[in-house]
């Protein structure tokens, strides 16, 4: 009892104005911020890969496979922040055993499995199959058996089989685009469906989430492509980078316009919540929204991208601008997630008071766990890249077959 009272007193001290007793403490903390950020990166990276596959944007070939692997490594970690946030994480599996079709959150498990099993893994498998077979033939010992296991025993490299791979890959990508939209649009859908919360309750929410996902995914691929190329001592393909920059700037303009539209509409509507929301923006969210999301995370990178893409600057300068812009975009999109998730809980339903969020350092819902969760996808990506090097072969430049190849 004393502890509860002490906590309450501390929480009350952080609140201003008129706030209901059950609103002092925020229940969705940084883990729930990390989660949409991760799924956004997945959807964005996959949509970038789809551009090359479906719309034949050949300049993006160097990042196609890398994007798929990135999407996979981030997707594997995406549910972990949610599980870490649950009191009884093992119960999460029950949504597969007893599907609840009327609950968006429960159905997400199926969206996730669909995206992982039917879209990403299948697309990767079809895309890599020919290379996997070749690696199996070239390798010796355990590695050989490992690659054979990866090929699932499907070792045919006949023209028909390869043609089927290409056709299946294209078909899966076609299914994959709406699936990627579903995967991340759903997160916005969940927030947008909370009618009682004026900060979240907006039909634009899924769309805004989706475009910010595309922005963050493309920016992440810019970073990963530049860093991996640098570590491989290769030259960066400027056509590819410029194309990435172009898509990035287009996606950013759409994303920023949508957010601005949402903001202007709220302002014009001026519902009774507008006073507390503006108070929240000017007090609690000033740094994370105005400074971090809008100035550092949107306007500055847009200016850098426009300069790199449309001004006559040397390639070296362009690379630097792209790199800086991509980092700033990550900061901006993370701030976007922060502002949406925490912003919706900082003001009272009485519309007359604000509470505060104290970020823990340690503990399951703390900063360190979040940092670990953000680093883990890169570790997985490192392993995946070792197993399935994205810069060899591929559907666009068939590898020469190993001598042991026997046409079926």
């Amino acid at each position, binding site marked *: 009892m004393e502890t509860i009272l002490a906590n309450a007193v501390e929480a009350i001290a952080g609140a201003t104005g*008129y706030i209901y007793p059950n609103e002092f403490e925020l229940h969705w903390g940084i883990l729930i911020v990390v989660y949409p950020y991760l799924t956004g990166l997945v959807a964005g990276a996959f949509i970038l890969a789809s551009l090359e596959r479906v719309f034949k944007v050949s300049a993006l070939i160097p990042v196609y496979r890398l994007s798929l692997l990135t999407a996979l490594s981030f997707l594997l970690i995406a549910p972990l922040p949610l599980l870490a946030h649950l009191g009884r994480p093992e119960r999460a599996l029950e949504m597969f*055993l*007893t599907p*609840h079709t009327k609950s968006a959150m429960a159905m997400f498990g199926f969206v996730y499995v669909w995206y992982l099993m039917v879209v990403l893994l299948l697309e990767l498998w079809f895309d890599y199959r020919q290379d996997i077979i070749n690696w199996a033939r070239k390798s010796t010992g355990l590695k050989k058996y490992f690659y054979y296991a990866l090929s*699932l025993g*499907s070792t045919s490299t006949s023209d*028909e089989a390869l043609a089927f791979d290409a056709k299946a890959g294209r078909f899966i990508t076609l299914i994959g685009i709406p699936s990627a939209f579903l995967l991340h649009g759903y997160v916005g859908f969940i927030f947008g469906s909370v009618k009682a919360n004026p900060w979240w309750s907006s039909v634009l929410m899924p769309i805004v989430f989706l475009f910010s996902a595309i922005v963050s995914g493309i920016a992440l691929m810019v970073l990963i492509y530049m860093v991996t190329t640098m570590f491989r001592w290769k030259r960066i393909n400027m056509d590819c980078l410029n194309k990435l920059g172009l898509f990035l700037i287009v996606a950013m303009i759409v994303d920023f316009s949508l957010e601005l539209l949402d903001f202007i509409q709220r302002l014009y509507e001026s519902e009774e919540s507008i006073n507390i929301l503006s108070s929240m923006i000017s007090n609690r969210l000033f740094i994370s929204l105005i400074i971090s999301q809008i100035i550092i995370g949107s306007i500055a990178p847009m200016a850098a991208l426009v300069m790199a893409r449309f001004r006559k600057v040397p390639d070296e300068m362009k690379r630097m601008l792209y790199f800086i812009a991509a980092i700033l975009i990550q900061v901006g999109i993370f701030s976007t997630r922060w502002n949406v998730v925490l912003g919706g809980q900082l003001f009272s339903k009485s519309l007359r008071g604000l509470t505060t969020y104290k970020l823990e350092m340690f503990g399951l819902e703390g900063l360190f766990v979040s940092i670990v969760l953000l680093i883990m996808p890169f570790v997985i990506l490192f392993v995946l890249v070792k197993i399935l090097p994205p810069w060899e072969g591929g559907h666009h430049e068939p590898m020469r077959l190993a001598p042991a190849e026997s046409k079926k």
Partner: protein
Amino acid sequence: MKKVPQQIIPLAIIFIVAIAALVTARHFFVPETFGDYGHYRAASVDEIASQEVVYAGSIICNDCHDDIYETKMNFDHRGVSCEVCHGPAMAHTEEPDEYTPRIPRIRNQCTICHGYNSARPSGFPQVVEEVHNPGRPCLECHNPHKPLLPRAPQACDACHREIALQKAVSHHTSLECKTCHDAPPDHMSNPRFARAQKPTSRALCGKCHDTEADVSRGIPRIKLATHNENYLCWDCHYPHHPEAR
């Protein structure tokens, strides 16, 4: 007949195995009574019902304590169940001499509802525990079964109780009503015609809140001459309100 592509076979096997595993898992892990009433295990209802009952409910108290129950039902705590203050009493109903419910003598029991909290409805009886007769149990002055004020309402709070209760936890708690309001002598007998006056000048508030005022330095100050001089103070600052700024 067209040949099935070779790749389809292992994939089909994997998907069939996965679906079969899910169906099998459902068979073993989904409880038998799941879904009988809704999206939950129906047997859990019986399990919960079979748990030991610790709360008896107010009505059973009436069997033995009808005098107290009757009193309570006629006053403002009628909606508060006996066990809210006295704790779970099922054992007492079964073995009255063996188990006696507690009588709350600590102050923080009552302040769960009556401690000042800005989120409570305006006019709800509240106290700031630290300054309201510190250290003395609430029961000394208040009877929770008949929660009336320990003294009869005086002059103003007889009619303006809500305002009085609100003012009691505001910054102006120590001021008398007449400090700011002029009430003609027959206001009490004929309030509609002999109206009490609200402050009509800024100077009244300025006596304490002007930068020039000669009062305690802890009181918030403002330069009255230049601070929104076209308005009365209480157009913006409601003086009875605990959160008034």
